[in-house]
Structures are given as structure tokens and as C-alpha cells.
């Protein structure tokens, strides 16, 4: 797991996972909110919504659009842009989608997101992760939820930063670093 590129990818997954969880748990799951701000219906005829929802259904291989996306689609332009980032973050790239779903599950578990934990667990299972693999991710998440709190309680200072080699490659498409 060396080189910075995979870590940029992982960070993007963490970011958009949290973004979706915020809207899913904080808004889309609350009847008091959706009664005032109803989600877009599955069969909304606007072409931009039809296209967006078709992409989402295909990406997740499910017949229904997750409620959070229907809620966000109240602003179709915003939802389409956000979806572009979500799809890019989660699609197979240097990191496989299966691992990205595991990262998203760990993030959701750590941030106590009921929607995110359930959704990314379903996605992990759909992508072939078995019971053992799920428990592996839960175990790692638990153990490092312990280590981090022990470290914070004792205010330990980082002392392992020099284990990983520095990646001197440029940004994608950019020139090599001078000097």
C-alpha cells in the first residue's frame, strides 16, 4: 500500500462517505424533515433526474435509488455533481471498489451512522465480502477505535511517521518535481 495515489483515493472515499451519511442520517431519514422537504420520486420525468437515477441504480445494481440521493435530487444540478464525485470516489481505480466499500463501512461505523453502516455493509456483501471479511473490518475498526482513544487520552505524539517512504512522483499529469 505504498505511493500517495491510493491514499488520495482513500481520502476521497472517506470524505464523500461522510457527506452522504450526514444527509442520509440527518435529513433523509427524518420524517419531520422529509414532510417539509419531500424527496424526488423514483419516477420523476425530468430528463436530468431520469439520467441521474438510472446511473445510480446501475452503479449500485438495485432497483431503487437510495433515499439520500432522492432527497438531494431536489436540487438536480447539485445532486448530479455530487453523484459524479461519489461515483468517481467509489469506482474501481487503483483501489478496488470492494476495499472502498470496506473503508466506507469502517467510516460509517466509527461515526455511528446507521444509514452508512447498513448501506455499505450491503454493498460489501453484494461485492462478495463474506461474513469473515465483514468481521475483519469490524475488528480493525474496533481495535483502532481503542488505540486512538488511548493515544488521545495520554496525548501521545506521532512517532511512526518515518516508516513509510516519501512518494516523490508529481501530481497526475504534472511535471516532475524540480530540485
Amino acid at each position: 500500500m505504498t505511493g500517495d495515489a491510493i491514499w488520495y483515493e482513500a481520502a476521497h472515499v472517506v470524505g464523500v462517505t461522510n457527506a452522504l451519511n450526514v444527509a442520509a442520517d440527518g435529513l433523509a431519514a427524518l420524517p419531520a424533515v422529509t414532510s417539509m422537504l419531500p424527496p424526488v420520486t423514483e419516477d420523476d420525468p425530468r430528463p436530468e433526474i431520469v439520467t441521474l437515477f438510472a446511473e445510480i441504480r446501475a452503479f449500485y445494481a438495485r432497483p431503487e435509488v437510495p433515499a439520500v440521493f432522492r432527497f438531494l435530487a431536489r436540487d438536480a444540478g447539485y445532486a448530479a455533481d455530487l453523484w459524479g464525485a461519489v461515483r468517481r470516489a467509489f469506482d474501481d481505480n487503483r483501489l478496488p471498489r470492494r476495499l472502498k466499500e470496506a473503508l466506507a463501512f469502517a467510516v460509517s461505523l466509527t461515526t455511528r451512522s446507521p444509514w452508512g453502516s447498513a448501506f455499505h455493509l450491503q454493498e460489501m456483501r453484494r461485492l462478495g465480502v463474506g461474513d469473515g471479511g465483514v468481521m475483519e473490518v469490524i475488528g480493525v475498526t474496533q481495535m483502532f477505535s481503542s488505540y486512538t482513544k488511548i493515544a488521545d487520552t495520554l496525548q501521545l505524539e506521532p512517532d511512526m511517521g518515518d516508516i513509510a517512504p516519501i512518494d516523490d512522483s508529481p501530481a497526475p499529469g504534472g511535471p516532475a518535481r524540480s530540485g
Partner: protein
Amino acid sequence: MPTVRLRDASEYPDPAQRLFELSKIWFNHDFKEPAAMSRVMAWDPEFGGPHGRAMKRAMASGEFTRGEKEMVAAVVSGVNACEY
């Protein structure tokens, strides 16, 4: 600044020295001084022992590789805003 004085490795008894050697092997890195967390865990072997075994069990390659699990661990640490 840590809220406790982290003891040097030389201040730990022999069983802890063995744990420090295992830590070097685990991280494949020759620390000048054991990592702070290793020294914290060695303070009480009756806690650090089972905690460390649970960690190694969780981190061992299975459906996910050790490297993939290190990434999960890094993500969890980041979300917990843990600087260490």
C-alpha cells in the same frame, strides 16, 4: 506533550523487551526506541497482551490483506481525528 512520562525501553522488565522485539517484527522497522503505543501497551501486560493479540488477529490477512487493513486502520484513526 504526553500526560504521562513515557518510560524508555530500558525501564521495562524482560517480558516487555520481548514484546518490543515482536513490535519491530510486526512493523518491519528498527525503532531506536519502541513506539509510544508499544510502551503504553507494555505497561500492563494483562491488558496489553490480550489487546495486542486481538489487534494481531484482526489485522492478520484473511479476506482482506494486512495492507488493506492498515488502510482501514488509518481511515478509522483519521475519522477519530487521532494525531498519533
